[in-house]
């Protein structure tokens, strides 16, 4: 009888089971989306073929994925890094803007050879992101003000600041239907189609960050401080100092994402430059579950989903279908993660 079957909750999920549950969740989300599309009158098999062909069938498609991947991997990493010290950096969006803003300031107003300018833009981008998270960081460290709210609110300030300069004082005076700054002359060089050297830089940053967290005394102290600050205090770890360092690092990484987007992909500062990459980074981090290396995979998945969105739009679908798909994947992944803690057993009577 059914009564003999029981769900057993296990204290920790087997890694293989957890991976399987996630894969199943993604597939289930795709199947669901397919069914919805079919109900809406589209041919899901054909669309799936188009998505796969367009994404992986040509170097054009792979380049597109790579270009989306660069900012996502960095904003995802920014959020993940902040998680290591137990904070939520909801402000990667704002730090992205400030990274882009600061890099643009250097690109527009500092004269010099492009290689030098590029290095200065890199530094400016990172510092810009750090400055933007500085106030929430100090408020959290010294007054225990929840960084969730402060970082989030600063996003709007950053977006408006960039709107202001790109439609006002820094605006390009000729030849645009929308407002943006003049094109920056220093560019991160491309090495494969439209894909620029920001890609290897971003991947290296992720690997370096993961290595530092896993293989350094500092990383150990940060993980402990993040998981339980009282325990860290008990162990004599300078929790506040680590909190400040890690949050600044998080902001700097998000700022770097903005700098690379400006210098490698868009080349002009404009409103909406962030393309929501900061917010999407939160999703990337959630999917990565606190693992820096995991960010590589979840950013790749997110890039694929976003790119699929573009493809589906040319096939006559709206962006909301794509958003729904993203939401479904996250939702089912959460369920899958939980279910992977269970096993079904049969009681002997």
């Amino acid at each position, binding site marked *: 009888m059914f009564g003999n079957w029981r769900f057993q909750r296990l204290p920790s999920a087997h890694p293989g089971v957890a991976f399987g549950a996630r894969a199943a969740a993604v597939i289930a989300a795709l199947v669901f989306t397919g069914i919805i599309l079919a109900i809406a009158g589209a041919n899901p098999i054909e669309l799936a073929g188009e998505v796969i062909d367009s994404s992986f069938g040509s170097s*054009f498609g792979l380049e*597109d994925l790579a270009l989306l991947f660069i900012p996502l991997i960095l904003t995802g990493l920014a959020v993940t890094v902040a998680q290591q010290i137990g904070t939520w950096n909801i402000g990667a969006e704002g730090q992205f803007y400030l990274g882009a803003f600061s890099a643009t300031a250097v690109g527009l107003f500092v004269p010099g050879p492009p290689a030098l300018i590029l290095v200065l833009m890199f530094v400016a981008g990172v510092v810009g992101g750090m400055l933007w998270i500085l106030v929430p960081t100090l408020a959290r460290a010294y007054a225990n003000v929840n960084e969730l709210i402060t970082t989030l609110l600063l996003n709007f300030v950053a977006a408006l600041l960039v709107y202001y300069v790109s439609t006002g004082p820094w605006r390009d005076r*000729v030849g*645009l239907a*929308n*407002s943006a700054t003049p094109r920056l002359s220093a560019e991160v060089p491309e090495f494969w189609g439209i894909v620029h050297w920001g890609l290897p830089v971003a991947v290296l940053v992720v690997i370096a960050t993961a290595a530092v967290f896993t293989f350094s005394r500092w990383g150990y102290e940060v993980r402990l401080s993040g998981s339980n600050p009282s325990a860290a205090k008990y162990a004599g770890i300078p929790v506040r100092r680590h909190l400040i360092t890690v949050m600044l690092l998080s902001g700097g990484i998000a700022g770097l994402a903005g700098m690379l987007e400006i210098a490698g992909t868009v080349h002009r500062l404009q*409103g909406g430059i962030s393309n929501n990459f900061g917010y999407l980074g939160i999703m990337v981090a959630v999917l990565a579950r606190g693992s820096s290396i995991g960010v590589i995979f979840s950013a790749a998945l997110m890039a694929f989903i976003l790119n699929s969105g573009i*493809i589906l739009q*040319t096939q006559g679908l709206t962006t909301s279908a794509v958003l729904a798909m993203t939401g479904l994947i996250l939702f089912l992944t959460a369920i899958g993660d939980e279910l992977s803690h269970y096993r079904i057993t049969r009681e002997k009577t």
Partner: protein
Amino acid sequence: MVNLRNLSRRGFLNMSAAGAASTFLPSGLMRQAAAAEPLPAIKEEDAVLGFGHVGPITDEGWTWSHHQGLLACKEAYPNLKNILEVENVPYSSDATRTYRQFVKEGANMIFDTSSTGDFLHEVVKRAPEVAFMECNGHVLMDNLGWYYLAHWYPTYVIGVAAGHLSKTGKLGYVASFPVASVYCSTNAFIMGARTVNPDATLQTIVINSWFDPQAATQAGTALVDNGCDFLFGIMDEAGYLQVAEKRNVWAAMWNTDIRRYGPNAYVSSVIIDFKDFYVDQVGKRLAGEWTPGEHLLPLGGGVDRDAWGQNVPQEVGDAADAVRQKMLDGWSPFVGELKDVNGEVRVPEGQRMTEMELYNWDWSVEGVTGLSS
């Protein structure tokens, strides 16, 4: 002007083939790319077209008008089955992705109906076999042309009407971005109004969007609150017209006839029509005759003023239309001396601004406030 709409398709093709040699330019051609070889002809049934729009095709304005062009192409070339169309293309790297996707799907000709600039040009450079046309573009490449409207003429006409209709002499303008088409539009409007009321002023509010009914409504309300009794602007929807209707002031619009949203307030529109242009361009591409050019659709040939609103007195309409007729006959109001807002002479006495100068106008004439310059 010949009304192209009355021609049969075959007849039209003959016309345009002949037109290339004559001075008659149905699409207001300014310049043709110098050395570009035409891209090879394609069979109608094999051809793929791509349209990227800034807004939704249901906006009853700018995007709707371009969509009508797409429909006209379908009608003109019934075997043309494969037309890709994406709405709400953002002004961001997502635009690049969208146009790259068009290329991936085999598009032979792509129309960017609201200039995405560099985001489009990234794709143009990497897809030399595809013909690109950028509306409100500024760059000519071997496979990229641009097109726009000489909207300053009907705008001046509407400005004349505003000069007659406004009692306070305070005019309001809901602007998208401080870009050339907005400078030119505000300048033409105030210049038209000042021929009637030399003391008229134009207050501008920039809302940083081409389509944001809420912001446009707020801006319109603020302008009326400031004493403006005539609202104008470049918006792809009817937000501030509804404000004008409610607040009992005048309003003129852009793109299409949307007088039903404010029948009492409605004065006119800068009305646009891309159908003939699209049919012409697509026809050339199919025939293997397309080369990139710069097109400004002229007054009466793609851009005009709309029929006057029900409350516009006959004599006001007549006075404005007299100016319009002069323009059709070759007269231009955009002749020096013109001073900017700081009183500096920017166009010397007697000098007539060229169409390209008008198109790239980037400073405000006296009487305009609110656009940073």
